């Protein structure tokens, strides 16, 4: 894959943020907050890190695989999939509308390229990623499996079943990230159900843990993912605590849970888009 400059990757991020806002505005639903916050992570993955084939096939043999466990941030994923060539960007206009392949939460049933399992009901994606990583090991396929979870999602019990399982089975071809933005639907995570020390928890479960202090700095995100890769193959799975700001990129959306699952109105959209340069052409 050709390497993009930091400036180029930042330009892609700006366009992806415009896509996210226009998608949720168009259907007046969806989850812009963490989609905006995770934009750098998705752009770093799909435009810099993943060895992947935009001619999608389910098995992904010889490719790196990505699983999104917190499926509600589908807007950022759909935008990045379209912008990296999995399907036409025009299809983004169908998000959450009837007869669309772009379901509110990611799904395989309509055959949208890039999606390998449905997600949305929280807590399930890490287990699926571990299964796919074990499948790669059994097949002698040395590529990597990536997963992203939310921090609120850490409140689900199944996450900790999976957390216990991966080190036990020495799943050392897996890089899981947690979007640590400190927010969930009803408020800040420390008020709703305190997660306390995630680093200590994941280390205690047997993972190699790294921290990305600023997950909205694309250079830092790439450095972290490179570091994570260097830790693979040593008997342990890798966990990346990716600190982001929910709503990053739009001044009135940043840092609050209020935009977790609320779409901007016409006026808010205009105000938000004015802060984000159109770099690749709106869909």
């Amino acid at each position, binding site marked *: 894959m050709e390497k993009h400059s930091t400036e180029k990757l930042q330009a892609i991020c700006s366009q992806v943020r415009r896509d996210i806002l226009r998608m949720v505005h168009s259907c007046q639903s969806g989850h812009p907050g963490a989609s905006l916050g995770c934009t750098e992570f998705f752009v770093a993955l799909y435009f810099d890190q993943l060895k992947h084939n935009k001619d999608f096939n389910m098995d992904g*043999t010889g490719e790196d695989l990505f699983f999104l466990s917190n499926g509600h941030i589908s807007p950022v994923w759909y935008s990045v999939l379209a912008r990296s060539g999995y399907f036409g960007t025009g299809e983004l206009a169908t998000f959450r509308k009837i007869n669309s392949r772009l379901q509110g939460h990611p799904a395989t049933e309509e055959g949208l390229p890039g999606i390998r399992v*449905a997600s949305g009901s929280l*807590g*399930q994606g890490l287990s*699926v990623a571990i299964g*796919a990583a074990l499948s790669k090991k059994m097949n002698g396929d040395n590529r990597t499996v990536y997963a992203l979870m939310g921090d609120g999602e850490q409140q689900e*019990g199944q996450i900790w079943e999976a957390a*216990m*399982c991966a080190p036990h089975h020495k799943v050392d071809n897996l890089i899981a990230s947690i979007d640590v933005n400190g927010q969930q639907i009803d408020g800040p995570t420390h008020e709703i159900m305190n997660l306390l020390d995630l680093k200590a928890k994941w280390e205690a479960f047997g993972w190699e843990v790294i921290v990305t202090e600023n997950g909205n700095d694309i250079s830092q995100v790439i450095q972290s993912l490179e570091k994570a890769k260097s830790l693979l193959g040593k008997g342990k799975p890798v966990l990346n605590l990716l600190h982001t700001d929910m709503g990053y990129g739009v001044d009135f959306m940043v840092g609050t849970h209020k935009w977790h699952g609320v779409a901007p109105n016409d006026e808010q959209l205009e105000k938000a888009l004015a802060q984000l340069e159109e770099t690749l052409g709106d869909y």
Partner: protein
Amino acid sequence: MEKTLDTKYTYTEKKDTRSGFGDGFLELGRKNENVVGLCADLIGSLKMGAFQKEFPDRFFQVGISEANMMGLAAGMTIGGKIPFTGTFANFSTGRVYDQIRQSIAYSEKNVKICASHAGLTLGEDGATHQILEDMGMMKMLPNMTVINPCDYNQTKAATLAIADYEGPVYLRFGRPSWPIFTPADQKFEIGKAWKMIEGKDVSLFATGHLVWEAVVAEAMLREEGISVELINIHTIKPLDTEAVLASVAKTGCAVTAEEHQLNGGLGDSIAQTLIRNNPAPQEFVGVDDSFGESGKPVDLLEKYGLNAANIVKAVKKAISRK
């Protein structure tokens, strides 16, 4: 009583249906290198030990974490594996319903959910483990195939057959030692009912352990001059509606027998088929909106109205309503 009856099918040996699964699973391991196993701390109960011993690299002990196991299995299909999960029927369904719904059924993953210790005949462990709602939960899921074989041989044949079918399957079997009365060399066709006995007065549709009770009931009824057509419904979904309708068109009434709640069971599926196409009197043998309890399997079947004598009564009632 059974000994003196002239049953159309007989047995010389009893074995648990879970052993049929375990033996079929081992055979599958030798035939198909993509078949992999997962078990949530019940390898002995599920009879998965022989497979684990012979194919340790294709077998995963996941501990007591059934939700995680379902996710792992869904993920393993990516790359072409055919995962068979093993735990009790209770923990294979109710405990993990949302995981199966989203990661397996909706995602169309080729996972085989293999569920032992289903129903009252689990016996002494009691109602916490005696799930009687599992077939209902599973048949409601789009994309899910539901299979409930009747004896060791049929369970083994079903285990082999589901590996060749692409898509999620729920395979239900049980704990008790049970008569082996179907042939060892049977061909198992998913979704194809098996007419075991021709008859003209009543269509008796039975599934799982109650097929044997139905075989006994047929002999009892024959002695009284009642001609029973016995149909073995090993596949609850997709239901062989053609076989159901053809039989009831001939006999004019139906009885269903299952080790399951009446709500959501085989009887419901057959009633729906009949009411849409050819309404006919139907009687239901199954558990009537109650939990089970501890006890010996045979005593439980009697107490909850699921044995041959209850089938006989239901048949007479169905015929009287024609």
